[in-house]
């Protein structure tokens, strides 16, 4: 029984972390431009890119 007393709050806490993460993504406008975010990963950043061979 004691294990339940520990596991139940832990599972609720893990759920809360999920809700918090979702809240953070909403707050940071991460759903405004899904197509752009997918495209940006393909862009080379001139400063960071490795030197041409």
């Amino acid at each position, binding site marked *: *029984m004691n294990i339940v007393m520990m596991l*139940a709050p832990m*599972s*609720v806490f893990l*759920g*809360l972390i*999920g*809700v918090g993460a*979702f*809240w953070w993504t*909403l707050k940071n406008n991460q*759903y*405004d*431009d*899904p*197509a*752009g975010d997918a*495209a*940006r990963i*393909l*862009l080379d950043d001139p400063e960071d890119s490795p030197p041409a061979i």
Partner: protein
Amino acid sequence: MALTYELAPAADLTAFLKRRLGEKPSLDLLVKGARCAACLGKIERETAALPGVAASRLNLTTGKLTVSFDSLSSADPGAVVATLGRLGYPASPYDPGLAAEASEREGRRLALCLAVAAFGAMNTMMFSVPLWAGLFGQELGPATRVLMQWWCALVATPCALYAGRPFFESAWRSLKARRANMDVPISIGVLLTLGISFSETLLRGRDAYFDAAISLLFLLLIGRFLDHELKSRARSAAADLLALQAASATVVDEDGQERRRPIGDVGVGDRLVVRPGERIPVDGQVEAGFAELDCSLLTGEIRPVTLGPGTACPAGAINLSGVLRLRALARPEDSSLAAIARLVEAGAQSKSRYVRLADQAAEIYVPVVHGAAILTFAASWLLGLGPREALLRAVAVLIITCPCALGLAVPAVQVSASWRLFRRGVLVKSGAALERLARVNHVVFDKTGVLTEGRPELLDGPPSIVSLAAPLARASAHPLARALAAHAGPGETATDVVEHAGLGVEGRIGGRPARLGRAAFVGVPDCGSLETELWFGFEDDTKFRFRFSDRLRADAADAVAALKAMGLTVEVLSGDTPTAVARAADAAGIAQRRGGLTPIEKAEAVAVLQSGGHRVLMVGDGLNDTAALARADAAMAPGSALDASQNAADLVFSGDGLGAVVEALRVARGARRLALQNFGFAAAYNLVAAPAAMLGLINPFLAALAMSGSSLFVTLNALRLRTPR
């Protein structure tokens, strides 16, 4: 292209700069054609490199580019637009407006409420499973049961209070207006359930319904979220259309400089320049220049009107040829367009009187269910149960008859219907529009641009003569000449071409001077012909006449036949001449037709039909249709229509066919049938469940099962619309 128009000088767009205190000035632009990572990189790199630009970011999903500038004095928005144009992405200033911002905030709030409700429902469910097991004789001591109930309370109550706020606030607003919408029983149900569950937990009772309260909110929020997404997607698409036809005018300052200004800033007496392809912004008088005007969206006639100095020109017409210098005669709100705009407003009010299906259902549902709950409480108490037991039964009635099925019944159907129409190129502006469309029994078509393609086609002319005139026609940008050139196909182009605004085009074909244009210009006495025509001739040679007409859309006759087969009556109302209307109506197979109507007469004709018991669908594209579009029970406009018409319409269809009208009607009717089925199912379910709850046969497990089961059934039924049968 032999002919290029004088390019507009880098337009002055400083009027569209957004200035916010403590922030850098910025400009929002709608960029067309950006699709991939390469476009995105190119656009951001090139615009950010411009002098004075601090940062530039493109939203690839919505096609909106935000450019911020270092300071107001160094900002040059015109250079940004010019750069984008050079890269091949036409851009126009965009103002999302306050409504869009509020809608976005509301969307985020609903998403967060949905997430909180999902978290609450899942975790409460976790603690509820042992409780349900206890109901079926599994080993569950009283201490463990109370512990689980307290955990349920701890998780469900804050979540329900937070996630239920959209419902509580809406219910409060509706109660203050002395009406009861669907959110009133939802709020009462949730709050009462939470309260009773608390008291049961304190009193060590068996029945606590925390899981029911929070999963009820979760299911309802799904419906609410879908409804909101449907509305905001349609709204942003409509706003994009508006931005592409940015309402601005080119005003000439006293020092002779041209500036682009929002149309609302144009005053009486301002001097304006209207270039070919632009729309006349306000009623005005021509000071200099000759041009032909396309008034087809105002009157329905495709024959261009010729203008010279001293003549008046109406707002809304499109300049086809020649640069016009005007003096504004009226402010935008007093222009001839404004009278139509007032009619549109009046029509929109009559539309808003429509009561949505879900609200109609709520009007029956609320008194019946609450009556049943009160009756249960009173009867059980009188029949000898304790007040606590009686109250528990009344709450069970409220929970079991939960309106989730009702709350999901309509949004789920409408989302799948509008998704299906979206894939067919039809944009649905709101769910209410679909409901109104489903009840239509009379269809009114406009002629020009709806039944017909809205552009002139060559009627007759021997092929040898057409090919003779074609080189000159290819050199001109005039719509009639383009129609002639399209008929002739590709070939050589005339040399030494000079375009005379409002008259015609002159040039050499094989060294011989030739003219194409109005009768008098070519050298034929003008006999005031009413035909849409073009004359052609070599100098000192025989002159030929080409006649043009507006061609019927390829599937117009099929679409009309399909509408008739669906039991609808069809009519044509047009501003064009009765003979032209008769010709088009005959070809499309429509017997009822009226021509020569003014915009106001059109709206009146629709009103007369409505008072005769008809429910009218108006399909129109012109400014002369907007009042009728707003007045009709449902309205559709093609994507080629004017912004004002698209605003007044409930649905906008793209593509060439009228088949979209038939499809939209089919889907709307199908959606109504499914929504009514869902209501029927919800009613049947309540007829079984409510008496069971009144007799005290319901426990928390059965309540949870019934609630999610009915919601699932309703959603699956709605999804049947996705796949065409």
